[in-house]
């Protein structure tokens, strides 16, 4: 796969279709991949990588990249294409400045899950027929890839590329039974008190590093309300547990209807807070209350947060029909 991507990128650079290539660059170990822009074949050959750790959603970088002159080639995984469409909808990406190559992805590995299993001193990783062979300073370990995949990949909503100029590898389908709302449902079934203590436990770990916000392709404000002294919400760190909740509620609310459920927020959280559950709650509510909606499925869609129906929308009291207090 990596070879194919490099070859195609070299061709497109050579024939002038694109001027730059946005992809992933290898790091010092197998897993520490960094997004990068490549401008010539030499750089591609030396540093371009596509492996089971290329998790970064590159679409957000296209905001800046597509502002520049010329055309940029972007490799997008199925989930990334949803974010891309959504950003085009929001006029944040100049579509005509991007050449999208959809790349196949069967799920990315989570190095944190390897570590949680006690695998440490990782020096190299290979994938052999669904098994992740991990070389460590303390010996080799073999783990089935699907046991250490990123949570978001385990509940993948779609393996389909919703936008591309060309595809490398197979295009998949929307996953009907992704089970991505299972955890949300589990929480919904709890009492309010249980939910409260669940979230209190999770959110109290938040260090307000803003990684979730800054990685989020839906968080593209010129100046976030949490950085703006005039907003009344500016805050550097949570002094009280109210502020932890405030930040995450408002953030989820602001991206509601625009969040494509790409899962980057949870992936990058240093404290492993399952932030995607907040976004998924909104997505689930939209689906149930206002009809199925998938942000980024098509560019130009109107967010259900901006829409309404006169008679079909339930009253807000519908919320009270949920679980016990």
């Amino acid at each position, binding site marked *: 796969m990596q070879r194919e991507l490099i070859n195609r990128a070299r061709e497109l650079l050579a024939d002038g279709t694109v001027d730059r290539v946005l992809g992933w660059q290898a790091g010092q170990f197998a897993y520490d991949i960094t997004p990068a822009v490549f401008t010539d074949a030499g750089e591609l050959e030396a540093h371009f990588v596509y492996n089971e750790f290329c998790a970064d959603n590159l679409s957000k970088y296209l905001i800046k990249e597509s502002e520049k002159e010329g055309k940029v080639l972007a490799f997008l995984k199925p989930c990334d294409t949803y974010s891309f469409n959504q950003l085009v909808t929001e006029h944040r990406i100049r579509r005509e400045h991007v050449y999208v190559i959809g790349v196949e992805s069967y799920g990315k590995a989570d190095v944190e899950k390897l570590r949680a299993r006690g695998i440490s001193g990782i020096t190299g990783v290979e994938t052999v027929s669904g098994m992740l062979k991990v070389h460590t300073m303390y010996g080799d370990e073999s783990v089935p890839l699907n046991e250490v995949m990123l949570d978001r990949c385990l509940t993948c909503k779609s393996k389909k590329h919703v936008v591309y100029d060309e595809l490398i590898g197979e295009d998949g389908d929307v996953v009907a039974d992704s089970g991505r709302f299972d955890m949300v449902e589990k929480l919904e079934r709890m009492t309010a008190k249980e939910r*409260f203590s*669940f979230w209190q436990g999770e959110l109290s770990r938040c260090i307000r590093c803003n990684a979730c916000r800054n990685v989020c392709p839906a968080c593209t404000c010129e100046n976030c309300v949490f950085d703006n002294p005039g907003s009344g919400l500016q805050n550097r760190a949570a002094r*009280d547990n109210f502020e932890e909740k405030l930040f995450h*509620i*408002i953030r*989820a*609310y602001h991206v509601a209807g625009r969040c494509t459920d790409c899962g980057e927020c949870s992936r990058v959280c240093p404290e492993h807070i399952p932030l995607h559950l907040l976004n998924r709650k909104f997505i689930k509510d939209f689906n149930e209350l206002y009809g199925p909606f998938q942000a980024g499925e098509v560019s130009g869609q109107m967010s259900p947060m901006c829409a309404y129906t*006169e008679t079909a929308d339930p009253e*807000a009291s519908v919320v009270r029909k*949920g679980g016990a207090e």
Partner: protein
Amino acid sequence: MSVMEKTAAARQAEWKPKIIAFCCNWCSYGGADLAGTNRLSYPANVKIIRVPCSCRVNPMFILRAFQKGADGVIVCGCHPGDCHYSTGNYHARRRMTMLFSMLSFLGVESARTRVEWVSAAEGARFKAVMDSFVEDITRLGPNERLEDLRCKEN
């Protein structure tokens, strides 16, 4: 004892729910006025904030109210179809539904938040709504799950 001292003393006495009601200028605020004109009494701990339309109510305002110690927040607007701006309350309905659902998801008691449609003609309804909301909140007790402890007077 001066009224000032008395009111301070009354504040100390025992917990009384603090309710913030956002009322749209055209219907619900008028409904509240009508409740007044008709001398329909409702609990004094309901404090009204006038907004042009229920769609002006930002989730930020509601969270802010809870942060600052409100025990319940109610948003009142024109009945669906009657919005002065024609569509404001439809937007408000969705926005508040989503916000309240999220608050409930985080474990905040869902009865602490409400949306009610009260027309400028419904003074009696305004009173009834406020009575029932205050009753709900009184039953729930002080808001502890969504408050900022720094804002408690100590």
